[in-house]
């Protein structure tokens, strides 16, 4: 078989010359879609055009010139209808190869017929059909088959030319060279167009393939991310369940210890001599401390596990701060400290936030202030911030203060500024850790100012209205 110059170098010998629209198994779904549309167009156009041309020829026969060649052609074209339905049926069944080959076979026959029977001036039609056939072969069939089609169409062409003499068709006033040229010239023209078209389609095909890969990867990544989120949420949920269960289990025996020692200390359990009373007091006191630790540790764990979802509502900051401070007056009285509560009248009437979280923050800061102050005063102030979207709560004391290096770790769990201070001042070292975690949940900030020996000020900055959250969750 003579080798026609390869249009495209390819490792797969079975691929068509112009593979862009090839009917091969390698197509991606998107390409296949494209190809099917193209084949569909070819089939439908053929289905539509053929009867029209057939009618045209028949009309020409009956009304223009009753030449038998015209009649023959008209009937042949009409006769194609079954072929096109055959092709269509195969197309519907997904058998594109058969469908296209049926059409190409018909084109071969028709080109031969036209070349044989028609007037020389109309011979070009035959040539066009043969060329179209060759192009289709180049696009749609694997190489060896394409070559066969092209050779076949050339052979039919030559045979048809020779046959003209036998059928007594009007002779052609052209030499063989001209006739050959008539065939080759349009073929080359259309071939050029086809190659250009092919390159474009190849490019598009490549792009399509790439975007499909990207799409598949994106879908996969999304699926994995969803799965990871599910796993993480489940882990958090289990942790939270474990925490609640543990919390109950730990508190129950502790409540019993606190209860019984309390009864004994209250004189309700019979007489206690002073020695025994002292020891029972130690038990009771330590148990209360342990309970405090448990409560705080579990709260901290809960906040860290993001199980402390903020519930936003609208409330008056003045009211909240004043009320909470009032409840802590006794702490000040016990230590003979001054306690000032200052609320800026310019504070908005209503802000949006999680009341319980803010309350807890205040309690923790005030407890610390009272705990670490021996003489002097504690002051809580609620006011505006420089940022109009934020408001402040600051707790200042004239207590022992915090050394500069300690500021980094006082917010760590179980840390106090001085490692011996827990013995002296009590406390769990968790108050600030809880404050810090809770502030993270509500997008707040905390700032520390302190002079060792003089006192400290903790300033908490809170959003006036958390963006978006308020709409989602505002409880009137």
């Amino acid at each position, binding site marked *: 078989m003579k080798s026609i110059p390869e249009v495209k170098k390819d490792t797969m010998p079975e691929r068509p010359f112009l593979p862009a629209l090839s009917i091969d198994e390698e197509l991606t779904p998107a390409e296949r879609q494209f190809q099917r549309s193209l084949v569909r167009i070819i089939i439908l156009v053929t289905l539509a055009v053929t009867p029209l041309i057939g009618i045209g020829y028949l009309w020409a026969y009956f009304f223009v010139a009753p030449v038998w060649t015209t009649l023959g052609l008209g009937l042949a074209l009409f006769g194609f209808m079954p072929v096109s339905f055959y092709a269509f049926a195969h197309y519907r069944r997904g058998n594109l190869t058969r469908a296209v080959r049926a059409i190409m076979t018909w084109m071969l026959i028709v080109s031969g017929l036209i070349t044989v029977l028609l007037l020389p001036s109309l011979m070009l039609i035959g040539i066009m059909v043969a060329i179209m056939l060759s192009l289709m072969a180049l696009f749609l069939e694997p190489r060896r088959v394409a070559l066969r089609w092209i050779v076949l169409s050339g052979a039919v062409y030559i045979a048809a030319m020779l046959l003209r003499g036998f059928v007594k068709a009007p002779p052609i006033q052209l030499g063989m060279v001209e006739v050959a040229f008539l065939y080759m010239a349009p073929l080359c023209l259309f071939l050029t167009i086809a190659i250009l078209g092919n390159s474009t389609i190849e490019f598009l095909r490549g792009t399509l393939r790439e975007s499909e890969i990207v799409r598949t990867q994106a879908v996969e990544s999304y699926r994995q991310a969803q799965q990871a989120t599910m796993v993480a949420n489940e882990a958090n949920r289990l942790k939270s369940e474990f925490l609640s269960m543990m919390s109950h289990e730990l*508190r129950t025996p502790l*409540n*019993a210890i606190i209860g019984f020692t*309390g*009864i004994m200390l209250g004189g*309700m359990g019979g007489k206690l001599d002073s020695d025994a009373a002292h020891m029972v007091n130690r038990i009771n006191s330590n148990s209360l401390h342990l309970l405090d630790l448990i409560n705080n540790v579990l709260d901290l764990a809960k906040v860290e596990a993001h199980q402390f979802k903020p519930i936003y509502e609208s409330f008056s900051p003045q009211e909240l701060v004043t009320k909470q401070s009032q409840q802590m007056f006794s702490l000040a009285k016990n230590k003979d400290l001054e306690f000032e509560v200052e609320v800026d009248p310019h504070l908005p009437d209503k802000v949006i936030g999680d009341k319980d979280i803010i309350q807890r923050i205040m309690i923790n800061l005030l407890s610390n202030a009272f705990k670490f102050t021996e003489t002097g005063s504690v002051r809580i102030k609620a006011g505006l911030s420089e940022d109009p979207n934020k408001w402040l709560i600051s707790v200042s004391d004239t207590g022992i203060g915090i050394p500069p290096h300690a500021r980094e770790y006082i917010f760590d769990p179980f840390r106090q500024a001085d490692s011996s201070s827990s013995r002296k001042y009590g406390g769990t070292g968790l108050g600030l850790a809880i404050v810090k975690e809770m502030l993270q949940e509500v997008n707040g900030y905390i700032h520390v100012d302190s002079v060792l020996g003089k006192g400290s000020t903790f300033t908490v900055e809170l959003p006036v209205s958390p963006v978006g959250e308020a709409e989602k969750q505002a409880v009137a």
Partner: protein
Amino acid sequence: MIDKNSVETWQVLVVDDEPDSLEIVSRILSYHGARVETVAEGMAALEALDRLTPTLIIMDLSMPDMDGWEVLYHLRNNPRLRSVPMVALTAHAMKGDRERALDAGFYHYLTKPLNPLSFFDDLLAALANGSHASTEGRTEIEPGNGAQTGRHQTL
């Protein structure tokens, strides 16, 4: 009249599945002069209530078989027992629990651990204040809806 002076006449029914908790409450009340009957579960509480009309009921809300809400429901539907004050006792302290209990008809709401030194005075004060929840016009409670989830926060 439930006040300090009538303690000797009190007949208190205490319901709790934890024996230690039962004993603690019982001891405190007995010390002050009240008569105390203790039961460890809801069914037993209902049986006891068939036999007697207590002055006061102290009930743990988180018992396994029948919870305090169910007993409250039975109570409220019994004309003889309707006016007996019932105090809720619970180890959990979830946000909104207190309000829900009071709304449902509990007289008072206490959390464990009790402070033995102030428990009795606390109780007297709450009972003297009068009913926190009248039996008319309040949310009808149904058995089993007591343990609904509120916010899971412990303060």
